[in-house]
């Protein structure tokens, strides 16, 4: 049953008979089931490449590199999924990354700013860029596609102005943001980095405790809870997954990459923002039905504006990660980053029409793209073919999603 059908109000609307099917009973699970599906797809792809690469994919250093290489996509995808849920798009993030990266590098090399100040400056400039685009989208009413297409050109141009060709010679502590790992202050336990193990254990504990408390609270208030078996299976799967990842990472050369901590903090914070706060709720309300949201008292313009400011801030963070990883600012940096981020969102289940999408989905989408990249690279597949394969994966992921929905609708 398509929920977006236009209703011809001039003809008598046939009243649907209330029919409570099992499908409807499972409705509360709907969003989650979709998430399990995409998570399952990630695991299948990982296992597939693990076999195809003769076990090289999950070597400790490759896993660490997977996060270091793809941190930028995950960071951008967090902001992008919010933009997409609200029914917009942002094509400018790649150019913004290049521009902000240039400013940060120049500020350190030519103006001798210390790296923490330069980092804050970069994020702030990202926010200003976002405010600029948000102004045109929210208060002037120009479609985001146009505003950010313009932004794509404007900020690529400004990046060229600021950077020239390359700004290199950046401080090593800045470069460590992307290339470094958390210091091994707790030593090793049979070759495993204890800091990494500790973080993994804490993460598992935090997830289990928070899930148990949420469930207890739902119970107490006599609200809908998922079946106990499903709940335990879900927790066990999460614990085992994080456990395996932790152990693998603890064997890597450096332990836990710093960017992984950055991404982890952002994911937790933004999942909370989207799932639990009034602001997040308003984003979903606007994406689901902008007119109804406005008539329910949501200040749609203000929400739109802040969504773009936020996207700019995250593009600033991505710029820092990208510049640090390259060890230099390059005017051509960030090419196609917007497409990577958008693809991650759609693979992760965001709806093109807005209203649907999750931070976790976008992250999983980014990881699927990352694993594909890495797996194909290890197998020495020609980059031209890699690109073609990634394109097909995007198309199939969305087609699969659409067919699924259509099938559900005809039941």
């Amino acid at each position: 049953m398509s929920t977006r059908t236009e209703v011809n109000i001039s003809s008598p609307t046939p009243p649907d008979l209330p029919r409570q099917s099992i499908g409807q009973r499972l409705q509360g699970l709907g969003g989650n089931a979709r998430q399990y599906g995409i998570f399952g797809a990630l695991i299948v792809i990982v296992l597939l490449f693990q076999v195809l690469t003769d076990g090289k994919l999950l070597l400790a250093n490759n896993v660490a590199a997977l996060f270091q290489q793809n941190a930028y996509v995950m960071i951008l995808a967090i902001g992008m999924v919010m933009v997409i849920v609200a029914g917009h798009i942002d094509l400018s993030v790649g150019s913004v990354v290049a521009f902000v990266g240039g400013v940060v590098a120049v500020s350190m090399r030519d103006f001798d700013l210390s790296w923490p100040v330069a980092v804050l400056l970069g994020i702030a400039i990202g926010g200003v860029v976002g405010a600029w685009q948000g102004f045109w989208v929210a208060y002037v009413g120009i479609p985001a596609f146009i505003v950010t297409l313009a932004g794509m050109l404007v900020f690529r141009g400004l990046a060229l102005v600021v950077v020239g060709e390359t700004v290199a010679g950046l401080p090593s502590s800045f470069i460590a943001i992307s290339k470094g790992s958390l210091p091994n202050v707790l030593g090793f336990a049979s070759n495993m980095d204890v800091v990494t193990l500790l973080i993994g254990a804490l993460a598992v504990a935090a997830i289990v405790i928070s899930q148990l408390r949420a469930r207890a609270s739902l119970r107490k208030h006599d609200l809908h809870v998922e079946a106990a078996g499903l709940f335990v299976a879900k927790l066990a799967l999460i614990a085992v997954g994080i456990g395996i990842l932790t152990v693998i990472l603890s064997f890597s050369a450096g332990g836990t990459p710093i960017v992984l901590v950055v991404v982890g903090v952002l994911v937790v914070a933004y999942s909370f923002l989207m799932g639990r706060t009034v602001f997040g709720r308003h984003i979903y309300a606007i994406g689901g039905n902008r007119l109804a949201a406005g008539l329910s008292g949501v200040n749609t313009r203000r929400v739109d504006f802040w969504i773009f400011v936020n996207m700019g801030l995250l593009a600033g963070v991505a710029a820092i990660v990208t510049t640090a990883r390259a060890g230099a600012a390059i005017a051509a940096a960030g090419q196609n980053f917007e497409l990577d981020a958008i693809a991650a969102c759609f693979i992760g289940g965001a709806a093109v029409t807005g209203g649907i999408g999750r931070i976790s989905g976008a992250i999983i989408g980014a990881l699927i793209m990352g694993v594909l990249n890495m797996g194909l690279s290890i197998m020495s597949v020609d980059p031209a073919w890699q690109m073609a394969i990634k394109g097909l994966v995007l198309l199939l992921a969305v087609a699969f999603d659409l067919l699924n929905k259509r099938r559900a609708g005809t039941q």
Partner: protein
Amino acid sequence: MDTEHILEMRGITKKFPGVVALSDVNLAVRRGEIHAICGENGAGKSTLMKVLSGIYPHGSYEGDIVLDGEVQEFRGVRDSERRGIVIIHQELALSPYLSIAENIFLGNERVERGVIDWNRTNAEAAKLLARVGLDERPDTKIVDIGVGKQQLVEIAKALSKEVRLLILDEPTAALNDEDSAHLLGLIRDLKAEGITSIIISHKLNEIEAIADTTTIIRDGRTIESMPMHGAEPVTEERIIRGMVGRSLDNRFPEHTPTIGDEVLRIEDWTVHHPVDQTRRVVDGANLTIRRGEIVGLAGLMGAGRTELAMSVFGRSYGSNISGRLYKDGKEIHANTVQQAIAHGIAYATEDRKRFGLNLIDTIERNVSASALNKLARLGVVDRRGEGRVAERYRREMNIKAPSVASVVGKLSGGNQQKVVLSKWIYADPDVLILDEPTRGIDVGAKYEIYTIINRLADAGKGVLVISSELPELLGICDRIYALSQGRVTGEVARAEASQERLMQYMTMDKDGIAR
């Protein structure tokens, strides 16, 4: 061959799931006449014309369409157009950025070996424009001409298809007097050329002036068909009686109002059309609502009811709005929806799917949408509290859904309406404007909605109910305003209200003269 009648529709029955829209309707149109169809909103007039023009194809209805004595089986609009039947809908179907000539021949292009012959297109268009009396160049774009002229382009388009039976659905609803007069004159001229017309109109004075025969439809049935120039001339009163003549049974819960102080007063409220800013959609309206009172707002389609309500609700409709709002005796300014809600005004839309609900989200999130801040601390939503609130309304309002986590888009119309009402009741306003609160929902659910409305009034809220169904207004309201062409043309207390009286006010022209 039947030479007297060009068209006969015999025993037409059209059912939608759960609703019988037309029931054994008969219509006989004589060759060369102007035949008017009258009826209240929702009586089935438009449905009947959609059956005739093939929009509802053969097989989706019962009964026969007989054209020139032959039974027709139209499978689409193209079939009916091939036989010379052309329908012009109330919402004009012209492409705004194409020229008049391009629109006239859209789908029927003048081509020479697959290539459009522009000279022929424009020359033929010019001839048609002369025929309908439209003094515009054929290459003028549709956006650059007014609605009245657009209506003429539609007729020119119909003529280009060699129309024999022209159907006009509310052709003058959006026109000013001058354009209306021209259009009616044109329909008479076409009659002289032998073109038969069926005209659906709420403007009874126009029908009296132009029609040869009038058929009245009520509740999906043909009530009567009368010649206008018979021995006894048909008056507007006569038509009104036919349109509303049904009895009220026990479809409404008993209610004794406890009416308190004035809660909302609207003074000299004028609203202009958002695009055509010279058009007054609401014109100097005055009305008051008191606590504990259920006030009705009656009006025909296009009278400006929804426009009045939405412009009061944080100026969510219209441009160049003027007038004053008083809440509990003090003047207030509600320039945004947020301000209106803060002042205790709520508006539940007539079009819940477009303006009322996030259909892809759950009941609980829709219920909380207008008052999320009541459930939030430091911007963080208390989801347990939200679930409890939604659960409470699910029980109180008897929303039939497995849980509050059910997606709203899958509920029936009546249950969706209860979600909309829950949303606004939870926002705890002092004034609720309910626009067509029972549109498209079944009788049982209607009764429940009426009960909820009574409860709201008993809780000391002022309720304004907009409805196209006069019996509904008469059944639940303590006082009723009638709106016609943007003006409040009458105000009647429940005791004195009757459908005939309201219909008279609703069909008055803007100078307050009964037409």
